[in-house]
């Protein structure tokens, strides 16, 4: 006997909709073809709500809630697109750009970058916040891949794919606040990591030009994370 999944009904952008109780607002919205921008969310990985781009309004909640980590509830009234949310998303996006050295013209991921394409699709014409221009390093010690902290937006996709899919957990986040950085093992050069299996999954899931394959010129830096849901399905315990 299988338990029937509980179905929740709610209103999303003025449309009556329903979803299974374990679904998040994001997955319900995508099923109903409602656009919610995301950066840290990736099909096949767990959700952490790090990028704050998927914030939505829920009637009765005092603050905006991240759609990727909020589950649907009975009677929810969700607004995914409004002038207020659009303004917040613009601000979040600008903060992401201003935090590190995102200069698209000289980035290897130019035209293949999720951050860049989001900025285009959300109509971000310029960054009003002054860039911080922090002095950050580039790690070229790995024989096949490069880590460029200047382009990292701390979405933690690499950390999650390494831990959840590859099972190596080479990556993690060190420090806190503005000092946060992704690290391999004990903050050692990537090439000297004992746990890295050189599988390259982190490179494929990186939304920006922070992780890329060596010996590629601009425009060849395409990422393809479509293998993830497949791997997840195949690895589920029988």
């Amino acid at each position, binding site marked *: 006997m299988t338990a029937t999944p509980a179905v929740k009904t709610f209103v999303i952008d003025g449309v009556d909709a329903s979803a299974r109780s374990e679904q998040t607002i994001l997955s319900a919205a995508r099923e109903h073809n409602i656009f919610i921008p995301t950066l840290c969310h990736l099909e096949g990985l767990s959700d952490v709500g790090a990028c704050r781009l998927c914030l939505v309004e829920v009637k009765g909640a005092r603050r905006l809630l991240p759609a990727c980590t909020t589950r649907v509830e009975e009677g929810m009234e969700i607004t995914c697109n409004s002038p207020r949310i659009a303004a917040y998303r613009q601000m979040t996006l600008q903060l992401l750009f201003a935090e590190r050295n995102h200069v698209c013209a000289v980035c290897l991921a130019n035209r293949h970058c999720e951050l860049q394409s989001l900025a285009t699709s959300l109509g971000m014409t310029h960054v009003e916040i002054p860039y911080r221009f922090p002095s950050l390093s580039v790690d070229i010690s790995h024989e096949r891949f490069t880590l460029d902290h200047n382009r990292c937006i701390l979405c933690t996709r690499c950390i999650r794919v390494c*831990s959840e899919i590859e*099972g*190596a*957990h*080479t*990556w*993690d*986040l*060190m*420090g*806190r606040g503005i000092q946060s950085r992704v*690290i*391999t*093992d*004990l*903050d050692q050069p990537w090439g000297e990591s*004992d*746990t890295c299996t050189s599988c390259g999954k982190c490179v494929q899931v990186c939304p920006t030009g922070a992780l890329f394959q060596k010996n590629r010129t601009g425009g060849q830096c395409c990422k393809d994370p479509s293998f993830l849901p497949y791997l997840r399905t195949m*690895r589920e*315990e*029988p």
Partner: protein
Amino acid sequence: MKRTAPMWVIAENRSRGDRTMATLTRPPLPSADKRWMIVQGTMRKHGYSRNALIETLHTVQQSFGFLDKDAIRFVAASLQIPPSQAYGVATFYHLFQLRPPGRHTCQICLGTACYINGAERLMGHAEKQLGIQAGETTPDGEVSLLSVRCVGSCSFAPVAIFDEQVHSYSKVDGLDAQLKAWMKP
């Protein structure tokens, strides 16, 4: 085909009571130093469970004064936690020091009350005088400069702590004299 679970998944199962994998070999002590036995004692007390990480790092810091990479590697391997995760935890909390402390420590409170009473000027002076940033130690290993957030003596703001000795209503002159005394060979 059943895939082999990663090390920390095995550790997680074990802490849930699954004893089948309990005989995994633990790393040897990094050196003959008796203090490693204390560290090991803390881990044993918690049954080598993953969530003993912070407690164990506290023990390392109490025993050695700071956390070096060998210590973090040893603790991570013993508790079967990925080294990067253990390092992330150690760098996230301000209480953990990753460098050996200087012979003397100068702590300046930057809590709200001290801040509005000019603690920032004190910190600026100390940084200039010692040639280091807050959280660092002078190259000769004499003085560590630390910023703290509220020591509970707000009525004495601004507060500076020189080697456990609390100084109330600190002024740049007093701070300067103390730092000069320490910096002398």
